[in-house]
């Protein structure tokens, strides 16, 4: 499934969407950046409640296909602008991380 299809299927809110056609191949959930760096795989959806600027570099360098902010967490405009520039997709959802993970797991 692509990021765009996942957004539509689960009604996620796109916050930064420079690469909507990227493929989602699974997921990783976590808020500690070095765990994400070491354990997330390329093209994963990264589910987190962390929304500071450092998530953009982590998402870009670990090459995940989308950051999903859980629990209705939002990110400030500086973060979203940087994400657009760096080609990092960020979406948000009101659902808890576990619920998001279950849905992603069922559809990829």
């Amino acid at each position: 499934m692509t990021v765009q299809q996942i957004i539509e299927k689960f009604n996620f809110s796109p916050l930064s969407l420079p690469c909507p056609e990227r493929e989602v191949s699974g997921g990783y959930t976590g808020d500690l950046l070095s765990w994400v760096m070491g354990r997330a795989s390329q093209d994963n959806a990264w589910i987190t409640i962390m929304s500071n600027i450092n998530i953009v570099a982590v998402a870009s360098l670990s090459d995940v296909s989308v950051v999903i902010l859980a629990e209705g967490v939002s990110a400030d405009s500086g973060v979203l602008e940087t994400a657009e520039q760096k080609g990092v997709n960020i979406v948000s959802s009101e659902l808890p991380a576990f619920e998001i993970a279950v849905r992603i797991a069922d559809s990829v």
Partner: protein
Amino acid sequence: MSEFLNFHFDVDGENFVSAGQASVQVKKNLRELGLPPEIIRQVSIAMYEGEINMVIHAGGGVADVNVYEDRIVIILADTGPGIKDIELAMTEGYSTATDNVRSLGFGAGMGLPNMKRYTDEMTIESEVGKGTTITMCVYLK
């Protein structure tokens, strides 16, 4: 020594907002060179962890990435406090990060283990009160 391409960066120790920029730039450069995605990912992850460590533990430093025909060498050098017990620092979960830094998502004590895991060679030279130089190597063949 054979010919190589050098990318050099000064890593600012004050600025958490731009932390990781050198690594993001290196990723871009390696892409333009047409290197395999898996290699780029290894270098990106290892360099990011080292770059962040220089920012949060050492007040900044310098980063060099040298691309040879058969390998990529990443050298991160700082004049920070140094690492007293390198073996302990390499242990998963060991961190001296402050609460402030932890609130940003750092401080899991996984950075150095990630650097080791994603590179083919890694050496740490450190002297307390003088600084730390970490050299990592990723083979291209």
